[in-house]
């Protein structure tokens, strides 16, 4: 098990501290993450004859127990004959198939208009820290956890970086089971934490820092609302493309941000240090939506212009369907590139 590497400027979250690792609070949170990841993954494979999570390599590495949904073609019938147990043959993971997940923990990711009770799927009315709204960061962490869980379960190496204006928490790539705990701890660097509140997004700096840790080509999943300038996004994606990485752009937005259906003339207060603005939302709605959707289109256009995958996620939607379609599309692409 690798040890979670924390940025020196960010205090270590309590969940990452080994001495309090078994603290009930941490455990409950861990269970939540684990359960959430399981539910997402099982939801994806339920009713399918062919699991989408087969190995991404052709070199045999080891066996692993069969779980419902796995592709029967990968069953090692010889082992079944000798031991009467179902095992799947796992192939050696290639170095360029490491997954590095970048999770945006800036101030804007703390926004959410969906109730926690509705989004968590567990009947909890509030989070462990009392939040009643399901934020974009919650959605991003669920997605990151799901992806990491899947990857780890397949024996692939997973790394994680939580960032805002710079990398706030980093988990080195590893396929060991202890990595899961480190990932859980790193994802606990929630923007609702007063120490992280109001931090701006600085993707370029984050990419620079992460690129310094990566020697081989990886699959980089960037999960953010990407409320940054188009130039900065272009530069960051270009840098990753130049290094040969494959990038998956997950843009997380909230439905309220997409619709801007406010009627009350309450002042709007920026979550990343922007000045407050008192305006009648009804009168500015059209202009806002124009600007917002133009930015969304720009992000997608930039991602696709570099040949990267782009997936928009809404906090009001379940993660399963978009994640499944994403994995399916990705597998098909890999298959085309490897065997086509």
């Amino acid at each position, binding site marked *: 098990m690798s040890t979670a590497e924390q940025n020196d400027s960010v205090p270590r979250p309590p969940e990452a501290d080994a001495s309090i690792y078994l603290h009930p609070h941490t455990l409950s949170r861990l269970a939540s993450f684990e359960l959430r990841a399981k539910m997402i993954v099982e939801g994806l494979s339920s009713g399918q004859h062919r699991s989408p999570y087969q190995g991404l390599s052709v070199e045999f590495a080891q066996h692993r127990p069969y779980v419902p949904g796995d592709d029967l073609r990968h069953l090692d019938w010889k082992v079944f004959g000798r031991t009467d147990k179902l095992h799947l043959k796992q192939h050696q993971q290639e170095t360029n198939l490491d997954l590095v997940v970048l999770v945006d923990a800036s101030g*804007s990711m703390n926004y959410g208009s969906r109730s926690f009770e509705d989004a968590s799927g567990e009947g909890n009315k509030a989070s462990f820290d009392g939040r009643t709204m399901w934020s974009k960061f919650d959605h991003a962490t669920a997605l990151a956890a799901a992806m990491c869980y899947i990857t780890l379960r397949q024996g692939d190496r997973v790394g994680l970086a939580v960032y805002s204006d710079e990398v706030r928490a980093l988990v080195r790539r590893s396929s060991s089971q202890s990595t899961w705990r480190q990932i859980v701890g790193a994802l606990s660097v929630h923007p609702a934490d007063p120490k992280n509140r109001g931090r701006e997004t600085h993707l370029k700096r984050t990419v620079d820092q992460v690129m310094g840790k990566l020697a081989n080509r990886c699959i980089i999943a960037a999960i953010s609302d990407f409320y940054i300038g188009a130039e900065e996004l272009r530069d960051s994606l270009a840098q990753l493309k130049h290094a040969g990485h494959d990038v998956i752009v997950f843009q997380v937005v909230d439905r309220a941000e997409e619709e801007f259906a406010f009627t009350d003339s309450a002042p709007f207060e920026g979550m990343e240090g922007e000045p407050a603005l008192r305006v009648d939302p009804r*009168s500015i*709605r059209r202009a806002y939506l124009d600007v*917002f959707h133009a930015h969304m289109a720009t992000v997608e256009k930039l991602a696709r212009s570099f040949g990267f995958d782009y997936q928009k996620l809404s906090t009001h939607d379940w993660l399963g369907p978009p994640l499944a379609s994403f994995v399916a599309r990705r597998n098909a692409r890999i298959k085309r590139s490897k065997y086509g």
Partner: protein
Amino acid sequence: MFLNPMLAAVGLACVAVPVLIHILMRRRRRPVAWGAMRFLLEAYRRQRRRMNLEQLLLLFSRCLLVALLALALGKPILGAAGALSAAGPRTVYILFDNSVATGPGSDVSGSAGEIEELRAMALRSIGGLDRARGDRVGLILLAAPAENAVLPASSELSAVSEMIKQVRPSASRADLPGALIQLREELTRKDNADSSAWVVVLSPFRAGSADTRTSVQSLGLPAGRVAFIVSEPKEKPVGNVSITGLDPVRSVMLAGEEPGSSTSVTVSLTRSGPLDAETSIVSIYAGAAREVSTTQGAAASISVAWSAGQSYAQALAGFGSPRPARPGDPVVLTATINPDALSADNRFVRPVETRERLDVVIITPGDVGVRGEIANYRAADWFALALSPSADLSFRRRQAGEIRISTVDPEQGIAPSTGTQRASRGAGILREADAVIVPRPDLLDPAAWKAIRESNDRGAMVLVCPPAGPEVHTWTDTFINTMGLPWQVSRESRKLATPLSISGERPPTSGTDLLGVIAPELTALVGGVTVSRMLDARGTQGGLEEILRLSDGTPILIAAAFGESVGETPSETGNTRGTLLYLAAAPDVEWTNLPATPFMVPLMQELVRQGVGLAVGSRAAVAGVPPKLPRGATELVPAEGQGQSVIPISASGVPQIPIRDAGLWTMRSSGGSTIGAVAFNADTAGCDTTPLTKEQVARWLSPAASNFTWLKAGDPAAAPGGVADSVEHRLSRKQETPPISVPLLIAAAIVAAVELILARIFSHATREETLGEQRRSRGAA
């Protein structure tokens, strides 16, 4: 100005409410944490100008809405009807008609007259005011000239009421234009410039009290500052006959006339109202100044039959010549008619001057007398003979007749007194003369002309004719200049190619007809009279009056304007200048055969008798109109015991206190001697009872009061308080009306509708509804 100023003030202060609400709501709203703030700021940057404009429009419309509601509640005074604040002290100016038209009559409103009805309305008007509230009342009496009775307005309401109770109808016409001028001066006084007022005009508004031919001037005040309440015109037609003139045939009655001689008078009557066929009985009384009572028997009584539609009539009456109480005292003629609508104009008084005899001075060298042969007669002799035809021209006879003839020799000097030198004897004679005849003007020096001018200014008649001898006349310039005549008299006599006769047709006269008595026989009298030489005189229009013409139209006998000043304004002379005559032909056989014809005697007799009468002091005046009194008169003394005091006369010959009542006055000089009598009679122009319509009165008053309220005396709405209750009624009716200004309320409703539309447009409510529908449809799916 508002009827509810407090409400308006509070309401206007409420204009700040939308702003305050906006500010308070800004403070109370909890801020919304917003993740996509960068897009919101960008959108705001793009839309800032439009949104600010929308917000300002909305704020303005809401503030305007509140302001309009406030103004509507305050009820601004937009028209004249609301000039008086219901809350503040009120100022009421009563313009009270006490003219002759409001006087007592027999069939208008009983014996009391319409003034009692107006008085009751005025008293009730004051009774409705409250001294404790600060109400004030002003009073202007309309009898001409309009009298400032209580101005500035007084808070002593009871005192003004008492004053109104004492008001009596006068004999002058109503002078509403003059009253409005006084009112304007009062309302534009510095300390009164901003206050509003009610003006209550109380008048019967018949044709006599509202002369629609004259114009009423605007008050020149801002609209809404003055509210007029005007009594409705009396529309009931009533008939009225007025005596407009009583003119004796002779302006001067001579005491020396023989007993049994008769006097003739002309009575002029006018009629107004229904011009039905009727009969007026005119009674004429004659007596001394202190015997003008009509209780004695009438000297004459005549009946005037009016035909339908006839409005003017004249009648001639003759009666025995009255005798004055003392020689020189005036005789008073009084005409009355049977009672009708107005009694003030049923009596007309005319004093007639009496003289023991007339003093005529002939300025001629030597004495006058009978010369035997016609060729030996001089002009002076012919004049003397004509004026005293029955005498033998001896000095004793000349002094004993009705016309006393004296002579003054110009060669002995006729010089008026100066600061250092006494007047000559001749000047002294001229000063006492009733008539001065100048047959030899070529012999007069400037001093003599000056003495003649003084005599003429005092009222003496002056007759000038050219001398018979010379053909070149150098005296004419001095004559014209000294006498102040706008004439041109030739310097050379003109011999006519053929002798011309005097025309029997007389030119029209503008004044009293000097030859009126002999007019019927004039054609016969002038027969055979010819003129063969003359010294022409011409004059400007209005400064010369032709009395006799030749057959070719050339004037032979001319006069300056009778009784009027010549070339000078009346105020400078007191309008007492005597008649000035110019005979263009010398009474000499070389010039004309006039002196030798029978026409010479009646001509000179009439010229002297009538000419002297025109300038004497006795006269009839009109009440309310400044009379033109003779120079030398310094005070007026009531002759009938009217209970009035002596009225001084100004240097311009006008009484210093206007005389509005009918009555007889005697004029006194500064030395205390009586110099004549003057009778003030009712202004018959104000006695016209022709009814006027409301439209006529409204049009007449429109320059001063474009919007006013009619007040009907018998209006049940006004009863029992009359005008006062009516004023209160107007106010209370104001309060009964919706306590809000309807036009402003409508404007507020329009603004509210506009505000709603703007708010809906600016809030994009349609899009919200669409969004809501989308949500609902999505939820259903």
